């Protein structure tokens, strides 16, 4: 078991080149038996590439260097080879089939069967055992689409356990989870560690790393910079990790900003939204909020609290059914029932999921930039392409979007630069109220700072900004006022000076019965 002092895994001198790019350069990684080993690095640093080399996604021969697992040099040709040795990777985008049951998913590709005929009794019984092991209280025949992302993550781990995993690799496992589910997942990792399973966890969330990792390897620009012992004599601070990740000091993760508040621009009262597929389910429950010109207002809440649903329902009823309540712009009540009407009224909503809902990835930067208000550069329905280029280029300069030209496909940009295109697109629409849903999700530390600066600039130019974020430090760092939501209701609001992670969390976890009407 854990008495073996030789590392369970050693990767030596790993170099991987893609046409034109050196993704990994002489990377070394040593993972001790039975530990939780974190890997940190900015987006694009090469973390995922390294894990793909390890798990055989990139076959032996397509990279240089050695992989030694349990003292044996391995030459994986496929992920199947690595899984046979007990190395299982859980990707960021979960690989589950929504219409199949939990049990079917667990044994997908590894069916409990004889002669091609599935043994359902065995499948479901073994699945139930695995679910117990990961602490998931669901029936094996429940369909994946009926459980939340947090539980799906646990199903992925159950699936890994079914393969007799020795080394479990998790790529950003908590990126889509709320704090509660994240905590459960981290607890599970500790449990598995006690059972002797080694884990590698890739994460952006430094507090998580501090909480769970035994050692941390930091990768920057395709090179392994250093490995930190998290239980060493000197405690490892988050700033210490960030500094190594970005290769420079972060004096301040949030730009300072003094707001100049103007008149109230948007206000909602008694705003109630029902689920589109289930008209009896209340998703947003008599919410009220307001935002003034020049103000940055945050909305905090755990997953499922109804933050996105609230924002999208305000944005031209783009989510929900049976929407009731009053919406005021500049103190005047308005009725806005389509997205185009919302845009015309000066409301913009930048989605949390830019790849699926925000951008047309196969189209270029300039066309994405103008997409929300093409009419502005058109006459009689004919688009003025010259104007379009000039405008897109101006946004490229203002936002400092890193691209050789505005006719580059948006899908080829990094996350941070894609987000800048999303912001350009909504600024081009000239909104008065800008709702930003998770504006820095999946963006590396350096680019986040730039996004914050842009948000500040927007507020200074007199726009009302609403920021929805799952990262409480971010809300505390950039917002002037923060609302907290729980179970579809706004449970409290705090000015920046009075807000803390603890006080917000109290409101965010407030139960329905405990809240005042």
């Amino acid at each position, binding site marked *: 078991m854990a008495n073996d002092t030789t590392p369970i895994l050693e990767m030596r001198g790993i170099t991987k080149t893609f046409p034109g790019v050196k993704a990994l350069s002489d990377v070394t990684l040593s993972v001790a038996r039975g530990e939780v080993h974190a890997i940190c690095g900015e987006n694009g640093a090469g973390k995922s590439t390294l894990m793909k080399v390890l798990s055989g996604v990139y076959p032996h021969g397509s990279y240089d260097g050695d992989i030694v697992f349990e003292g044996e040099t391995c030459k994986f040709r496929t992920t199947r080879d690595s899984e046979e040795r007990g190395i299982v990777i859980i990707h960021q985008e979960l690989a589950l089939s929504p219409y199949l049951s939990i049990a079917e998913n667990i044994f997908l590709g590894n069916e409990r069967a004889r002669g091609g005929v599935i043994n359902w009794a065995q499948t479901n019984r073994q699945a139930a055992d695995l679910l117990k092991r990961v602490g998931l209280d669901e029936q094996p025949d429940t369909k994946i689409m009926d459980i939340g992302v947090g539980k799906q993550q646990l199903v992925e781990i159950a699936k890994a356990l079914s393969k007799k995993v020795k080394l479990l690799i998790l790529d950003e496992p908590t990126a889509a989870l709320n704090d509660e589910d994240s905590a459960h997942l981290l607890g599970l990792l500790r449990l598995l560690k006690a059972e002797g399973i080694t884990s590698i966890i890739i994460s952006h969330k430094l507090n998580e790393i501090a909480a769970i990792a035994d050692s941390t390897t930091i990768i920057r620009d395709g090179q392994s910079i250093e490995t930190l012992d998290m239980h060493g004599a000197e405690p490892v601070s988050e700033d210490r990790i960030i500094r190594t990740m970005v290769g420079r000091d972060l004096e301040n993760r949030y730009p300072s900003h003094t707001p100049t508040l103007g008149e109230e621009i948007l206000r909602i009262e008694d705003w109630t939204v029902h689920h589109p597929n289930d008209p009896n389910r209340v998703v947003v429950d008599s919410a009220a909020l307001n935002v003034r010109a020049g103000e940055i207002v945050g909305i905090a809440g755990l997953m499922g609290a109804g933050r996105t649903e609230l924002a999208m329902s305000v944005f031209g009823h783009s989510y929900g059914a049976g929407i009731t309540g009053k919406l005021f712009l500049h103190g005047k009540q308005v009725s806005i029932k389509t997205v185009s009407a919302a845009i015309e009224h000066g409301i913009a909503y930048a989605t949390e999921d830019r790849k699926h809902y925000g951008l047309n990835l196969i189209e270029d930067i300039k066309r994405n930039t103008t*997409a929300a208000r093409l009419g502005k550069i058109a006459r009689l329905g004919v688009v003025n392409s010259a104007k379009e280029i000039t405008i897109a*280029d101006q946004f490229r300069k203002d936002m400092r979007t890193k691209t050789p*030209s505005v006719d580059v496909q948006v899908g080829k940009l990094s996350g941070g630069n894609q987000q800048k295109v999303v912001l350009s697109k909504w600024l081009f629409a000239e909104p008065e109220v800008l709702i930003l849903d998770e504006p820095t999700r999946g963006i590396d530390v350096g680019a986040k700072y730039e996004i914050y600066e842009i948000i500040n600039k927007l507020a200074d130019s007199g726009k009302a900004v609403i920021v929805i974020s799952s990262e409480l430090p971010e809300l505390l760092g950039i917002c002037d006022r923060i609302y907290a939501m729980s179970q579809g209701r706004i449970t409290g609001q705090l000015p920046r000076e009075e807000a803390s992670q603890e006080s917000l969390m109290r409101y965010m976890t407030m139960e329905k019965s405990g809240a005042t009407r």
Partner: protein
Amino acid sequence: MSASTTLPAPAASPQPGKKKSESGALAAYLGGNMKQYAMIAALVVITLWFQFDTNGLMLLPNNVVSLIQQNAYVFVLTIGMVMIIVAGHIDLSVGSVVAFVGGICALMIMQWDVAWPVAVVLSILLGGIVGAWQGFWIAYVGIPAFIVTLGGMLLFRGLAIKYVGTTVGGLPSDFNALANGALPNWLGFVGNLDAVTVLIGAVAAGGLAVSQIRTRRELVRNDLRTEPFAAFVGKLVVGIAAVGYLTWLLANSAGGMPIVLIIVALLVLLYSFIMNNTIFGRHVYAMGGNLPAAMLSGVKTKRVNFLLFVNMGLLAGVAAVITTARAGSAVAAAGQNYELDAIAAAFIGGTAVNGGVGKITGAIIGALIMGVLNMGLSITDVTPEWQMVIKGLVLIAAVAFDILNKRRGK
């Protein structure tokens, strides 16, 4: 160690690359436009192969004219089909719509005493109404286009059989000339070339040159990426040469400039403009590329879908008129498999199977490839069953090439 700087530091920006040599840039440019050129190259190779194989029969002036006249309906239908496929739909009904509208057109002229020009306009409008019917179910009720147009395929075939019955023939020759005739020889001959055709060819070549030069100037003025100068000039020369050669062939043919070619050319120009330069066109691409994102950008997706099918109906109306005029009569069995011809042309012409990508000019080239295959295989006495097999394989090969090319590009 690294110096401590406050963010945002001028982070190491990925350099777009040093200035490449002209030849390197040219190679890179050609590599990046593989799909476009592969399609044209395939057309040229297939044509030359048949030209060689038939000892020069393939490109005889009169054969080229009948190639255009025979395939005019595909050109017209595939324009609408590309737009529909780009938006992420499909239309299986156009063959039946052609039969139905074509039949009504013939009935109007022969039995209801409508003057043929009026009948033509009414037929196209009837096509639009048919499109509105299907567009209503697709856009506003939300039934997948595949289902609605599969229903339409049966529905309009049935109506065609009901109302047209047996052949409605004896259509006036002026009407038939829309598909079979040529522009009259107003200007006499230049040598033995038809002067009207030469004039139109010259205008087309000049228009091509002017528009290309203007586009390039616009790009240069805005400091945008342009194709290397050599490629630009080469393309222009080849384009003008192609127009010139076609003009020479047509001016040498028995009739001169086919009327139907003028119709098709105007439609191609009009719809290319719509797809490239109008808000409507942009919205079609935006919906095909990412439907939820388009909705959240304020695109009125229902309206766009509805209009797309109305438009397909109008174009089916045009194709119905052309088909009826070409045959000189209407039959209920007309337009059999036309939807498949149009869909195949769109896909061979590089339209993406999942929508979002596709060009009208590409689909026209796709249609030409199919047309040349049809004609070449017929001249070389390949039996119809083998023609079908070959065309089926070509369709699969074209899309496979596209997909493999994309995969390698990753």
